[in-house]
């Protein structure tokens, strides 16, 4: 497993360095804006990026680091007087989007997770590497610049989530089954992105579907459908850009399976509203956003998402 990680890192950095010089010639004021769709897995365990948007609009090429925090509360659901406990999911993620050809890009996301929660037996915490996600994107439609008022960009992608994060079956109680570092499984991701731009105003839409497989402990997390849309507005000059954004993001979970048997009350759905901004200066950009649930029904009502927020710091390639 270590070898795989190292391999990916080497490939990632090689591509990064190889392309850095080439991209210098392509500077333009909008490049520093990276649209970061931010809907992580509702239950954190695979919050390594499988359900995030992997999008960027004007310049798809960057490396960076982001931190995101997810606040949940959960209950065992056994009694009317069962206590609710807070769960805190923290993730620091190295991420990048690296061009391979003019039409093909590769996204890599490597999370480090540190989660904690209260329980009837006291505080618990888990930390460690999460699941590594690698995705390839192919640009199938891209409006030539300046040719039209509306510019479209459609990308199709696919990838894999590798079980570099630890899955501990003893966490599988009647409480949040996703209090994990990783799913323990090889999962496959199909993704699409659509970007529409008219002068300073734009919309970024994304759909992706994660096919999850059974892990070594015979547990299979439910397949997951994610969707999101973000409207943004670009204020920019020669070296500086400011991009406020407003949008929504949703996640739909199918049931989990254990030993090929459905685990009741593990399906669910959540819809978030989100607000955020990006600031770009030269090759650097700083972004932050917050997400609040509009509607949710997770894990039979035994898990509730409170809110999420994130910050990121990126370097344009």
């Amino acid at each position, binding site marked *: 497993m270590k070898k795989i990680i190292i391999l990916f890192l080497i490939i990632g950095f090689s591509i990064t360095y190889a392309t850095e010089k080439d991209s210098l010639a392509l500077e333009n004021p909008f490049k520093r804006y990276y649209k970061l769709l931010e809907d992580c897995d509702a239950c954190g365990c695979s919050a390594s990026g499988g359900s995030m948007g992997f999008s960027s609009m004007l310049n798809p090429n960057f490396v960076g680091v982001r931190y995101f925090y997810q606040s949940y509360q959960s209950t065992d659901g056994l009694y009317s007087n069962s206590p609710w406990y807070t769960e805190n999911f923290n993730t620091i993620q190295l991420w990048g989007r690296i061009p391979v050809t003019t039409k093909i890009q590769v996204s890599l996301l490597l999370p480090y997770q540190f989660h904690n929660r209260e329980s009837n037996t006291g505080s618990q915490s888990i930390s460690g590497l999460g699941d590594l996600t690698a995705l390839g994107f192919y640009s199938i439609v891209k409006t030539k610049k300046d040719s039209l008022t509306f510019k479209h960009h459609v990308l199709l992608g696919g990838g894999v989530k590798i079980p570099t994060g630890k899955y501990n079956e003893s966490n599988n109680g*009647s409480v949040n089954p996703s209090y994990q570092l990783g799913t323990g499984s090889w999962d496959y991701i199909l993704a699409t992105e659509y970007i529409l731009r008219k002068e300073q105003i734009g919309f970024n839409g994304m759909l992706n579907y994660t096919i999850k*497989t*059974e892990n070594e402990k015979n547990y299979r997390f439910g397949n997951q459908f994610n969707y999101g849309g973000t409207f943004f507005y670009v204020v920019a000059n020669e070296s500086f850009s400011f991009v406020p954004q407003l949008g929504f993001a949703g996640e739909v979970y199918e049931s989990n399976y254990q030993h090929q048997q459905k685990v*009741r009350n593990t399906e669910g759905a959540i819809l978030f509203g989100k607000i955020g901004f990006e600031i770009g200066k030269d090759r650097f950009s700083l972004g932050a956003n917050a997400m609040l649930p509009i509607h949710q029904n997770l894990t039979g009502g035994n898990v509730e998402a409170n809110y999420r927020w994130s910050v990121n710091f990126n370097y344009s390639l």
Partner: protein
Amino acid sequence: MKNLIKNIAILWVATTILFSCSNNDDDTTNATGTLKVEFDNIYGDANFAFNTPYTNSNGEIVKVTDVVYIVSNIVLTKEDGSIYTVPKSDSYFFVNESDAASTLLSLPNIPAANYTKITFGIGVDEAQFNVGGEGQGNLWERADALGMTWSWAAGYKFVKFEGTYTSPSFTDASFMVHTGKTGEIYNYAEVSLNLPENALVRSTITPQIHIMANLKDIIDGTTVVNFEEGGMVMGGTKVQNIMANNVPNMFEVHHVHND
């Protein structure tokens, strides 16, 4: 470009199928495993606690100080309809709220299979009682230690439920519900519960059946016991009604873990 998309699609289908092939660990021949059965006492839908005031449908308020019941003769039904009966010598349990360990029954040497139903009795069945002291091993001693016996002739207490009550005429008066044989009527109760998920007993999987036992139902079920009429309920039609109408309906399987 169409070709590329097609190729990507084919690649995805292929890899998905490839990695989706799971190992079926159905080692159900000759192998055995352990099954755990948890009796989780509740009152209404609240987690049960001693000395906590609970209001019944008749307005009486009870605070419980002791609860023990005998779970016996466990029978498991497999997916194919066949049954496995836990050997009688290993199939008498005293579920005692004061002793957390006693609420989790561990049944070893269960044939590996997918079980869909659990059946058990509350009390000591008449056949076992009629075997007499010699054939019952240390059952009598175990029961006696928990105050679950009457005289030898009157036999075992099947359910012991004690505490205090407040009714129109009484404040914090004692109540004692002891069920068992009443004269010629034996009052052994049988409970049969379908499992919402199969219990997958394997050498590598120890399923746990989580049963909710609603203590409220003992006195406030189909038959409602009014302590206002007397706090000592140890015989007669009240006990017969409790064992016939209330106790068989107080249990429910909440879920099954297959960890």
